[in-house]
């Protein structure tokens, strides 16, 4: 009887519009105040001449967008953002797939290895990146030291990891990969361990070798989860500015300038709120596309 009564009660609660709305309101408030309002404000600022410290505000139409599109820094930043995102995601997907497959098989100390691999993700970004700043330092770099010790470089002509445009981009991508690989690995590990043990065994019996099983069976079966990892990775990379900000601050010569960092330096550090808001709006189409695919993948995963 007690169970029946509580069932009736909960059904009543679900049907009560007031209680339903009340329960739902925190989520709505959160989205409206912390996501909706800033987003609306960004759009509003992008069409104005808002500046930090100024009380005046005028509507200027598309002026901000016009001037941004003409700025070479912005074009460079768009290009860099794409290189940064695509480059790091390619490396992340390949490495995380290999790692997840390696970590699946039981071996001594697997727990420890899993913990160590996860460490870069759980450690604070800024601290980790400052550590990398030292590792890649032009004078004190341990990498350079090792390369010199191995006689691969002369001590007087060492690479400037963060000081040469291409090397700087490569360094930034590598450090970002270092940070993102654990996350992708964990997602893919979930995907690969969800494959029933019999399926690779059946492939083995059917006569498929290791690589044939891997590329024809395992990876195709992991594809939906790899998609999830990539979409998350794109968001975390395309909107990230921490690594670039700490390592190179966009330099040298804008060679590592990315969209979020440019929006930050222009809008906050450069006091030009309107231009910063306009730059950040260029992130929206990419993020909308990613969100769309993410929802589709989630939907498909439900059906399967």
């Amino acid at each position, binding site marked *: 009887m007690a169970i029946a009564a509580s069932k009736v009660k909960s059904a009543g609660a679900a049907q009560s519009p007031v209680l339903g709305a009340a329960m739902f309101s925190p989520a709505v408030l959160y989205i409206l105040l912390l996501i909706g309002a800033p987003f609306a404000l960004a759009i509003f600022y992008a069409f104005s001449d808002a500046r930090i410290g100024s009380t005046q505000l005028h509507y200027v139409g598309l002026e901000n967008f016009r001037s941004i599109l003409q700025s070479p820094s912005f074009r460079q930043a768009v290009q860099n953002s794409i290189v940064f995102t695509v480059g790091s995601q390619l490396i992340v997907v390949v490495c995380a797939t290999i790692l997840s497959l390696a970590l699946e098989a039981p071996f001594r100390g697997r727990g420890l290895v899993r913990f160590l691999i996860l460490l870069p993700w759980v450690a604070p970004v800024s601290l980790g990146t400052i550590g990398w700043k030292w590792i890649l330092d032009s004078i004190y770099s341990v990498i350079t030291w090792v390369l010199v010790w191995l006689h691969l470089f002369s001590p007087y002509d060492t690479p400037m990891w963060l000081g040469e445009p291409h090397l700087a981009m490569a360094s930034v991508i590598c450090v970002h990969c270092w940070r993102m690989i654990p996350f992708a690995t964990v997602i893919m590990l979930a995907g690969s361990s969800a494959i029933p043990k019999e399926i690779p065994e059946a492939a083995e019996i059917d006569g498929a070798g290791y690589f044939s099983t891997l590329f*024809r069976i395992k990876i195709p*079966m992991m594809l939906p989860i790899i998609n999830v990892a990539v979409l998350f990775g794109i968001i975390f990379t395309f909107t990230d500015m921490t690594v670039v900000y700490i390592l190179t601050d966009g330099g040298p010569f804008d060679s590592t300038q990315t969209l979020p960092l440019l929006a930050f330096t222009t809008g906050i550090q450069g006091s030009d709120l309107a231009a910063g808001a306009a730059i950040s709006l260029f992130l929206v189409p990419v993020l909308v596309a990613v969100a769309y695919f993410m929802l589709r993948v989630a939907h498909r995963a439900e059906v399967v």
Partner: protein
Amino acid sequence: MAVVETRNLTKVFKEGELGAVNNVSLATHEGEFLVFLGPSGSGKTTLLRMIAGLETPTSGEILIGGQVVNQRSPRERRIAMVFQSYALYPHLTVYQNICFPLKAQKVPKNQHRQKVEWAAGLLSIGKLLDRKPRELSGGERQRVALARAIVREPAVFLLDEPLSNLDAKLRASAREELEQFHKNIGTTTIYVTHDQVEAMAMGDRVVVLHQGVVRQIGTPKEVYEDPADTFVATFLGSPPMNLLEFSDIIVGFRPEGFLPADLVAGNKQVTFRYRVKYVEYLGAERVLYGSIEDGHFESKEIISRLSWTMPTGYDAGSVHDFAVAESDLRFFDRKTEKRADPRPYPWQ
């Protein structure tokens, strides 16, 4: 076609622990349908996986077609296996699933379609070739798994409880189809099951396993009528064989042989006073649970199975003369629980 043989095959998963498979030596006949039967944990699947090449034996040898294959990979053993879960590749269509072994073994491409269609035709799934496994029913999945196994014409078929995922009705028809299928292709087949009905119905011979040890190998008739020990006697048959323990001997008789005294054929019979405690009505038969009234075995439950053609009136609480034909008595040594020679009845 080939004969599978194991010699002193042993698998120990954890050192110091009892092996999952202990010292198993057996051999199939050419084209035989051999069933591994045992309760869960009896090592039957481990044994099959070792034959398939998915587990490495701790010791002992596996021979297929007269050659030791211990060091050979599954693909080199020319075996095909159907898994309990079927293990179909979910992202591939039925056609691609069946074609996979051909691709993996580098069969020339121009033969693929013809071979897949032959296998699909044999299992009448020709219309399903474009579907994905998730769009198939349990029975259809099983056929796809069989088609995938047969397509490259293996020397040996290994089946790991392929019927256990089907509902009871489908299982009976699938069993029949499997038997027919085996008759058609005539490939040596090893079939693992915990279901004694499947084992008895399908097996040319049955290997009864318990705790990784072979308890008996024989035709269904042999293992049922002449069990080698008390485990086989009680594991086969439902309800199981009645066992009466005496000082150094155990006497067993099947419930269907323990009948009202006047219904027991032959003049050599052993009679007991039987008190019926309760009756299970199963339609085609009635199962009586009761005890023998002679002071020794009051607490021991003795079962009798009466067919529906036999007279009624054996209700709960009533006492009757029940008997077993002497030829239906089986004797086991009390210590080893192994089969013993008939001897004078200990109660006389």
